[in-house]
């Protein structure tokens, strides 16, 4: 099956700083999503981005499908951005329609 790797595993930043999170995947994908897991454990959808670039406020994401990576940018970080960020990918595999998740990047924003 497809492999999904995220980097860095941990990131500690001062409030106001910008950050870039990376997601590499081992094969072509039909679906690539970014999630933020909040302190209560819920996975919040950030982007559905199998290719191209999207922006939502201070967050933006770019997926370069031909080079098999995606980047999540967070600008002007706030303490509420803290948490774990996951990327997840899907590639058809004998009818198994599950997402394969990376191991996450834990982001800590210090006031």
């Amino acid at each position, binding site marked *: 099956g497809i492999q999904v790797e995220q980097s860095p595993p941990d990131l500690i930043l001062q409030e106001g700083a910008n950050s870039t999170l990376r997601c590499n995947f081992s094969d072509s994908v*039909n679906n690539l999503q970014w999630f933020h897991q909040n302190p209560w454990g819920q996975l919040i959808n950030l982007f559905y981005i199998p290719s191209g670039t999207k922006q939502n406020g201070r967050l933006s994401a770019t997926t370069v499908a031909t080079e098999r990576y995606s980047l999540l940018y967070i600008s002007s970080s706030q303490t509420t951005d803290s948490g774990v960020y996951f990327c997840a990918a899907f590639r058809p595999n004998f009818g198994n329609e599950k997402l394969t998740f990376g191991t996450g990047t834990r982001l800590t924003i210090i006031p």
Partner: protein
Amino acid sequence: DVKVTQSSRYLVKRTGEKVFLECVQDMDHENMFWYRQDPGLGLRLIYFSYDVKMKEKGDIPEGYSVSREKKERFSLILESASTNQTSMYLCASTLAGGAYEQYFGPGTRLTVT
């Protein structure tokens, strides 16, 4: 907005009890999933369902069963709860085909004592 709800946020059960976790989605999605999340192991798929009464085993189905009698509802059943099933359980749903956005419920943190 897509909404996926789970019956409990926190649940404490005793070893050997039968446990039901319920998940409901309101977007007419064909596919529904149950994952568990454990520190250091990430999210692992337990079961998924692509239609009413249809189910497929995921990566770690042992000790679990599922039920999908209606399109909007997908239940995870722990026939005889054990301490190693203490975990965060996350339900998700999506349209059929796999290439569509998947949405998650708020999660159920289950403790088995």
